[in-house]
C-alpha cells in the first residue's frame, strides 16, 4: 500500500508542478503610490547583491535605476535628435589646442540631502579615482584626465593627459551620457568620510536625481520621487510618476503576461522576442513598440559580434578568422534567433545614416574582404591557411543570463559545426563569465560592441588595451580578444586627435584603419543590435516611438531620466517630451 501512496503522491506532485508553471504575479503596490502613479520597468536579471549600490565597486549595477533616476550627469546626448542637452552643466568649451576642457555648471543644483552640487564634487571624484585605481572606471578616467580644478563652485577645468577634441564624447572619463551612461560624479560630503571607497556599500545612495531609493531586494529596486528635487525650482519641472520600480519578474513568459495584464509599463531590452510581442500586442492594443510592424525594434548603437581569441594559436591566422566568418549565415541568425527584428552587420558600427559616407568610402575594401556567408570561400581559405577545420576545437562561452546570447549561440554553434569545426559550448552565468572573458580564457564569445561611435569602436582594437593571456583586459569588447597591431593603433590615435565633425580628415583615416582591420578581422561581425522595448500605454503616455521620435526608447540607459522628465529644448528653451499620466 505504501508503494501505491508513493505513486499517488508523485502524480499529485507532477500535476501541481504543471499548475505552478502558470506564473502568478502578485500586485506590489504599496500605500504611498497607486499603480496609476507608478512607472514599472521589468529588468532581465536578479540582483546578486542588492544592498551594494556602489557603482565603482565591481559588477555593473548602474542600469537598475541608479544611473537613470538617482544620479544625474552634466550632459545627455540624444542620438535620435542629435541634441547634446546640458543638464547639471550649462555649457562646455575647449581651449585652442584641446588640452583643457572647461565646464560651466548650472546654478541651484542640490544633492538629494539638500547639500549644494559644486565643482568640488567633480574634483573629488577624479581625485578619488586617481587614489584608488582598483575602482571601476578609474583606468579610463586616469588615462584621459590629468587633473581637474575648481576655480569657483560653478566652474570645473579638466586638464587632459593628451589633447583630445573628443573628450566630451568619452563616456568612461567624462560625465556626459553617451550610449548607456557616463562617469558618475559622487557627493564629496558623503564619500570623503569613507576610508575605503571600494568597501563602501552606498546602500542609501545620495544623488542629484529626481528619485531616492525606497527599497532594494534581489527582485529589484524601488524609487520614490524626491519632492525637494532641484529641477522643480531651477527647471520648473518634475517627472510625473511618484514611484519608479525596476523589477525582476522571471522569464519571458512571466514578463509577457505582466505586460499583457497592464501590470508593467516597460519590459527592458532582450526579454521579449518578436513572436511573443506580436502575440500580446495583438491581444492588448495598449502594448506598442518603436514601430508597429517588423522590426518593432529600435536600433541600439552597439552591433553584435563574435569575439575570437586572437591569442589562441589556432585562431591567430587572419585567414582562419575570415574562414570562420564565411561559415556564418547572418540571414539565418536574423530569421531564427531574432525573428526578423534586426539586420546582418558587416562591421562593428551601427547602420545610422550619419555613417553612410564612411561606409561608402570603404566599399572597395569589403569587395576584397567580404564579410558574409560563403562556404566555398571558407573552404578555400582553410586550404590556403593549411588548416583542416576538423582539427580546430573552439570553446564557445555563452552567458546564460542573456536570452539573446543563448539563442544566437544555438544557431551559430550549429553553423560552425555544419562547417566542419568542433565547437564546445560552455554555458555560464554572467558573474562566472566575467573573469574568464577578461583573462582571455575563451575562443568564441558573443558581445555587443559599444559605444558604437565610429572612432571609439575602432579604439576598442587599440594595442594600448592589449594584455597577454591570463592578465585582465580592461573590458570584454575592449580587446579581451587580444588584437595587437601598432600600425593600426597609430592611425586610430590620429583619428582620436581629429575633431569629431571634421569628416574630410576622418574619412581617409578611416579607410587607412580599415585597410588593416578588415583583412585582419580581429572579431567576426554578426548583426546590428535590436532593441525591442515593449511599452504598455494603459497608465502612461509619451514614451518615444518611431512616429514620435523625440528620444530613444531606452529604459536601461541613463537617458531614461530625460525620457521620464523631458528636457528644455536647446534651441527654443521649450519643454520637450516627458512621460505623462493617461488620465490627465
Amino acid at each position, binding site marked *: 500500500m505504501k508503494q501505491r501512496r508513493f505513486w499517488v503522491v508523485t502524480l499529485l506532485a507532477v500535476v501541481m508542478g504543471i499548475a505552478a508553471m502558470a506564473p502568478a504575479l502578485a500586485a506590489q503596490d504599496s500605500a504611498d503610490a497607486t499603480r496609476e502613479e507608478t512607472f514599472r520597468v521589468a529588468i532581465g536579471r536578479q540582483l546578486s547583491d542588492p544592498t551594494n549600490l556602489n557603482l565603482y565597486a565591481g559588477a555593473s549595477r548602474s542600469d537598475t535605476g541608479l544611473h537613470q533616476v538617482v544620479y544625474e550627469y552634466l550632459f545627455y546626448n540624444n542620438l535620435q535628435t542629435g541634441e547634446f542637452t546640458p543638464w547639471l552643466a550649462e555649457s562646455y568649451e575647449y581651449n585652442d589646442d584641446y588640452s583643457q576642457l572647461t565646464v560651466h555648471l548650472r546654478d541651484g543644483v542640490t544633492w538629494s540631502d539638500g547639500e549644494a552640487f559644486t565643482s568640488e564634487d567633480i574634483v573629488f571624484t577624479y581625485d578619488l579615482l586617481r587614489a584608488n585605481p582598483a575602482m571601476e572606471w578609474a583606468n579610463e578616467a586616469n588615462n584621459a584626465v590629468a587633473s581637474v580644478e575648481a576655480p569657483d563652485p560653478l566652474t570645473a577645468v579638466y586638464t587632459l593627459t593628451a589633447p583630445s577634441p573628443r573628450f566630451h564624447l568619452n563616456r568612461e572619463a567624462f560625465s556626459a551620457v553617451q550610449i548607456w551612461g557616463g562617469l558618475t560624479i559622487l557627493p564629496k560630503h558623503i564619500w570623503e568620510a569613507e576610508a575605503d571607497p571600494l568597501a563602501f556599500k552606498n546602500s542609501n545612495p545620495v544623488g542629484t536625481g529626481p528619485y531616492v531609493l525606497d527599497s532594494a531586494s534581489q527582485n529589484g529596486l524601488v524609487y520614490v520621487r524626491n519632492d525637494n528635487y532641484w529641477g522643480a525650482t531651477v527647471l520648473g519641472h518634475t517627472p510625473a510618476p511618484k514611484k519608479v520600480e525596476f523589477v525582476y519578474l522571471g522569464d519571458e513568459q512571466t514578463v509577457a503576461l505582466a505586460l499583457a495584464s497592464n501590470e508593467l509599463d516597460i519590459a527592458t531590452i532582450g526579454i521579449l522576442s518578436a513572436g511573443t510581442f506580436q502575440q500580446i500586442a495583438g491581444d492588448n492594443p495598449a502594448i506598442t513598440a518603436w514601430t508597429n510592424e517588423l522590426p518593432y525594434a529600435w536600433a541600439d548603437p552597439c552591433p553584435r559580434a563574435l569575439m575570437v581569441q586572437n591569442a589562441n594559436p589556432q585562431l591567430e591566422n587572419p585567414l582562419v578568422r575570415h574562414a570562420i566568418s564565411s561559415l556564418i549565415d547572418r540571414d539565418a541568425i536574423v530569421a531564427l534567433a531574432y525573428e526578423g527584428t534586426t539586420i546582418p552587420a558587416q562591421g562593428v558600427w551601427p547602420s545610422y545614416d550619419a555613417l553612410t559616407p564612411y561606409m561608402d568610402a570603404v566599399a572597395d575594401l569589403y569587395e576584397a574582404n567580404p564579410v558574409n556567408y560563403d562556404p566555398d570561400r571558407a573552404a578555400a581559405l582553410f586550404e590556403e591557411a593549411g588548416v583542416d577545420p576538423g582539427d580546430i576545437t573552439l570553446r564557445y562561452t555563452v552567458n546564460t543570463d542573456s536570452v539573446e546570447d543563448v539563442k544566437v549561440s544555438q544557431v551559430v554553434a550549429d553553423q560552425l559545426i555544419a562547417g566542419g569545426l568542433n565547437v564546445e559550448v560552455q*554555458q555560464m552565468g554572467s558573474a562566472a563569465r566575467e573573469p574568464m572573458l577578461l583573462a582571455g580564457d575563451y575562443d568564441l564569445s558573443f558581445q555587443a560592441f559599444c559605444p558604437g561611435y565610429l572612432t571609439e569602436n575602432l579604439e576598442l582594437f587599440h594595442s594600448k588595451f592589449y594584455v597577454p593571456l591570463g592578465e585582465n583586459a580592461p573590458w570584454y569588447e575592449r580587446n579581451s580578444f587580444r588584437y595587437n597591431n601598432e600600425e593600426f593603433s597609430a592611425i586610430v590615435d590620429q583619428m582620436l586627435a581629429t575633431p569629431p565633425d571634421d569628416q574630410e580628415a576622418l574619412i581617409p583615416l578611416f579607410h587607412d584603419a580599415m585597410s588593416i582591420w578588415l583583412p585582419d578581422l580581429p572579431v567576426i561581425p554578426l548583426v546590428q543590435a535590436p532593441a525591442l522595448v515593449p511599452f504598455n500605454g494603459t497608465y502612461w503616455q509619451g514614451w518615444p516611438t518611431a512616429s514620435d521620435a523625440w528620444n530613444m526608447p531606452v529604459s536601461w540607459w541613463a537617458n531614461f531620466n530625460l525620457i521620464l522628465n523631458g528636457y528644455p529644448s536647446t534651441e527654443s528653451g521649450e519643454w520637450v517630451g516627458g512621460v505623462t499620466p493617461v488620465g490627465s
Partner: protein
Amino acid sequence: MAAITVTEQPQDGPLIERRSIFSTLLGNRKFVWGAAVFLAIWLTAIIGSQFVEPAMRRTGAYPPKLSPSFDSPALWVGTTTLGQSVAVQWTQAVPNSMLVGLIAAAIGTSVGAIIGLLGGYYGGRVDAVLRVIVDIFLSIPSLLFLILIASLLKGVSVVEMALVIGAFAWAWPARAVRSQTLSLKERPFVRVAKLSGMGNLEIILRELLPHLLAWLGANFLNAFIAAILAESALSIIGLGPAREMTLGMMIYWALNFGAMIQNMWWWWITPVITLIVLFLSLFLVHLGLDEVGNPRLRTEQGG
C-alpha cells in the same frame, strides 16, 4: 513437447514457479498494457532516431514555427522558433531521458541495497554509522541539493546529470532494505544457514538478497520514473544538459522561447504528454507486478 514439459516439471520446482509468474504477468492486463506502451514509446524513439541525419537536428533545418502537418514525419509535431523539428528532438529526448532514469535508478537501487543489507545484517557499529549517513541524506531536501550541484556543474551532460540524481536516490531504498533485513535475519532459515557454516557474505547474497529482489524491482521502477521527473524539473529551471536533448530540456526551450504565450502548443505539449504517458505506463507495470507478487490484490481478470 507437452510430454517433455510434464516430465521436467516435477524435477525442477523453481522453474515451474518462474514460468507461472511469467505467464501470470503476461495474463495481467495492467502489466501488459503498461509494458506495451512503455516499449512502444521507447521503440518509436529508437527507430525514429535511425532516420535522423545530423543535418536534420540543426537550427534552421526546417521553416520555423510550423504547426503540426502530415507533409513529412519530421513535421508531425511541428517545428520550433529556431526551425528545428520537434519530432526529431523527441527521438533524441526520449532515449536520453530514459538513460537518466536507468543510470540513476541503477545507482540508487544497488547502492541502497548494499548499504541496507550490510547495515541490517551486521548491526552494531556498522549499522550505527550507515544509519546516520542514511538519515542525513534522508533529511536533506534532495531537490534543493540537486539544484545546488547542477548549478555548480553548469553545463552538465546527460550522464553527469544521471549520476547527480543517482547520488540522491539511494537513501530511501537503503532504509527500507535495512528494516526488511532486520526482520529476515531473525528467520529460521538464516540460522540454519549460519549453523551449516555459511559465511556472512554468502548468507547475504544467497539467502537474504533473493527475498528482496521483488521489492528492489519495484523500487527500481519508482526510482526510474522519479529520476526522469527530477531531470525534467532541473532542466525546466535551466540546469539541464544544454547541448543535448531530454524531455525536460524540450520543455525548457519551449518555455524559453515563449511557446506557451505564442500558442505553439505542439512544442511544449509533446514532451509533457510523453512524460505523463511514461509515468502512467510505469504505474500500470508497477500495479501489475504488485498484483502478481501479492495474490490478495489479484482481480478476476488479472489472476
